[in-house]
């Protein structure tokens, strides 16, 4: 809902600004937007001046027209193109990739800035060929080693009610590996009867046991393979996704600006496994920088959409200029 609003913020319609109920809010957000835009505006003498003054909370706006084109879906790894146009000629001066976040002022406050499906191989030098990795991806590992155990847990017999007898999950036809891998990354069980049954029974019987088993599968996978993460492949993915990406973050009535620098993406190395569910990478040259790769099921634990939820830590981050 908030993203479409961004397309109007550099110059909201007069009737929106004059609206009795929402006019003040439009003005506040618009002023903040034009202020933060100076951080990514083309570096001309004019805008360099406004960027400096913006740090001091001056509300001077940039001397370019700003056009916001929203991008979405998995084809794009950012939210919008922000184009700066020459005010007189309308010609494009520069275009920037932007990512918008709500309720955070810095990238290191985000619970994730990047998400990779579990089928994305982090353990081979060639993520372009996920079909034959040297180390199984987590979804394949789970299918082979833990899905049979998960199914076996739910016998359909309610331990608290001898009269409550349902179909044992083991009686369901298990899909072949290729079919399972294709389906497990979806976000809905519609049209997937095997997954729909697992979801229906998720909380009905043996919920704690199932949850513990899934936790064990993640811990076991990371214990076996976590330290073998291909740091170069991860860094390459990070650099490809984050270079020249500008984060515009809204928190406490203000827009804030942040970006991941090249220095913060270099010299990464394996550091540790944390809490049995995350790989921690650390910068060798700047140990205050850490990346946490949390492996978790995003839609129904043990059933759908296992993924790496990736966050960043700046251990001694400097406070944001307010």
């Amino acid at each position, binding site marked *: 809902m908030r993203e479409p609003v961004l397309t*109007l913020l550099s110059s909201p319609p007069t009737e929106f600004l004059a609206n009795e109920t929402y006019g003040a809010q439009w003005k506040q957000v618009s002023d903040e937007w034009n202020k933060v835009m100076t951080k990514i505006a083309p570096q001309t003498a004019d805008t360099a001046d406004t960027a400096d003054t913006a740090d001091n909370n001056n509300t001077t706006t940039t001397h370019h027209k700003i056009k916001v084109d929203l991008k979405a879906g*998995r084809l794009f790894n950012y939210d919008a193109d922000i184009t700066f146009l020459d005010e007189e000629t309308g010609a494009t001066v520069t275009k920037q990739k932007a990512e918008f976040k709500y309720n955070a002022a810095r990238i290191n406050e985000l619970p994730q800035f990047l998400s990779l499906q579990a089928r994305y191989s982090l353990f081979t030098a060639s993520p372009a060929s996920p079909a034959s990795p040297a180390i199984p991806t987590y979804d394949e590992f789970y299918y082979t080693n833990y899905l049979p155990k998960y199914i076996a847990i739910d016998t359909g017999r309610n331990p608290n009610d001898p009269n409550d007898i349902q179909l044992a999950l083991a009686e369901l036809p298990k899909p072949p590996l290729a079919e399972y891998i294709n389906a497990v990354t979806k976000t809905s069980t519609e049209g997937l009867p095997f997954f729909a049954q697992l979801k229906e029974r998720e909380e009905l019987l043996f919920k704690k046991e199932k949850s513990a088993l899934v936790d064990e599968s993640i811990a076991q996978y990371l214990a076996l393979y976590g330290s073998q993460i291909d740091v170069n492949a991860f860094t390459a993915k990070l650099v490809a996704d984050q270079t020249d990406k500008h984060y515009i973050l809204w928190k406490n*009535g203000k827009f804030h600006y942040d970006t991941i620098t090249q220095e913060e993406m270099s010299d990464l190395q394996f550091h540790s496994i944390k809490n049995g569910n995350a790989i921690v990478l650390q910068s060798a040259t700047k140990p205050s920088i850490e990346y946490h790769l949390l492996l978790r099921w995003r839609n129904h634990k043990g059933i759908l959409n296992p993924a790496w939820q990736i966050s960043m830590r700046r251990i001694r981050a400097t406070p944001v200029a307010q």
Partner: protein
Amino acid sequence: MEQQPQPTTPKSGRSTKAAATHLTLQVRDNLLDIIMRVITREYNNAVDTDRLRTIIVAETDPLITVTTTQQSQHQPPRVQDIGAFFKKCQVTKTTQQTRCVNLC
């Protein structure tokens, strides 16, 4: 208390996007089933159809999602939409926290 205007067009919320994406994916999957059956029959199992399917799925998934999402974004913002910038986030679980920081 101010009366909220009633929407006259379908909302472009997550459920609409998800439904459109789901339908398109279903059509794609059904079509793939047919194509794979034909390939298996015509080429007498000489083609690794599982691998072929995986590749086609990976290539087409992003296209399908972006198409449906872009369609839904054609709805212009309404004056009251600015209120979303002043909503409080109730952060209780990681999933909710993740949703909370995504502006869309």
